């Protein structure tokens, strides 16, 4: 249960209520950012963040490095498979 969508925080709307505007491919909505704000990451720092949005709340900041790492593992998987296939083909000759 879990419809969550990645979006980018583009501006802060209300400091006291911790509200910001998020953009998802041109669709915008006000979201509550209380869950992604802390001492190390204050409200203003959220602008530009990619976040996971669920029912109008930014629930987590998306870790760019982790995302890239996940995709890298999959790319490498493909490369390893190609190498293996090439080896098999040359061994078969």
């Amino acid at each position, binding site marked *: *249960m*879990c*419809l*969550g*969508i*990645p979006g*980018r925080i583009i501006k802060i709307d209300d400091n006291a*209520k911790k509200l910001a505007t998020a953009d*998802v*491919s041109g669709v915008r*909505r*006000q979201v*509550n950012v*209380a*869950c*992604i*704000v*802390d001492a190390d990451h204050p409200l203003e720092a959220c602008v530009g963040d*990619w976040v*996971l949005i*669920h*029912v*109008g*709340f930014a*629930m*987590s900041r*998306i*870790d*760019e490095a*982790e*995302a890239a*790492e*996940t*995709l890298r*593992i*999959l*790319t490498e*998987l*493909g490369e390893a*498979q190609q190498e293996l296939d090439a080896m098999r083909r040359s061994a078969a000759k």
Partner: protein
Amino acid sequence: MKYLDEFRDCAKAEFLLKEIEGLTASLSIPDDRPLQFMEVCGGHTHSIFRYGVEGMLPHGIELVHGPGCPVCVLPMGRVDDCVAIAEQTGVIFATFGDAMRVPGSRKSLMQAKADGADVRMVYSPMDALKLARANPGREVVFFGLGFETTMPSTALTILDAETEGIENFSVFCNHITIVPTIKAILDSPDLRLDGFIGPGHVSMVIGTAPYAFIARHYRKPMVIAGFEPLDILQSIWMLLRQIKEGRIEIENQYARVVLNAGNAPALNAVSKVYELREFFEWRGLGSIEHSGVRLREAYARFDAERKFAIPNVRIADPNACQCGEVLKGVIKPHQCKVFGSACTPETPLGALMVSSEGACAAYYQYGRIKRHEAAE
């Protein structure tokens, strides 16, 4: 769409499927006893069907659709309570779209709306609070539905209402917790699962530690998964690797969103506003200990259960209903006696046929394709 499209890439899906096929073949799985992985979360069920993932997997793997759909496990009696509140004079009943068509013993919220109750669909509890501000003469009740993913948003909304001194807003709290659900599955004698595809967004809130007992005590592996098709395929791959390597662990495939410690502000809001109920009724699964939450005494004035008189009657499912068995993954939707005949999306007997992520609705809508056909 960033962070979505990359995780739907068909070339990478092919790489993963090749690995999955290779691992499955190397495990020498008997034909009559495929590996059974359960995806707990309804969002995963939806994604699996939407992309046709199951049809792409080798025959040695079967996906079992679990009960992680808060709409599916909503007992008829609670729907009746919603309708009773909605039908009271002056009430604006605000709910997520998911709950609108779930049948109560007399009517659904959709039917109550047609009969004149002021039922409004909202995307966020914040929009329900907005309704309360805009309609000071009316009582706005928000139907708080969902697992731990959605608990923080309801809690934060209540805290906002408290700060602003809003008097005409309350929550009918039906939030439930995932761990007792998983435990009920693991304790079920009818099942023999080989692993779990774990709930990515629940984990975003609660972290990974709460699942430790699954590996340690029940000796089953779990991979916490994201919701895009590559996430699901990678998680299946990781489960197979665990089985191959003789490991039993809780792994996190969704590391770009899920932190081991979960989300602190969300957890703080949740513990501030809610306390555990001793028991809570689950459709098809019966009464489960410590599986639901209610508002703490300090927030009584925001608790619709205390503000309104509700029938609070336990209604048994129709006799023909096999919702419980489908929810636990004991039978597949099409194996239910009434699937597709007495129980269809137009005439649902149970919530699994209504909820867009209910196994039955998903199966009916997306999945009536036999495996061998899909492989063409």
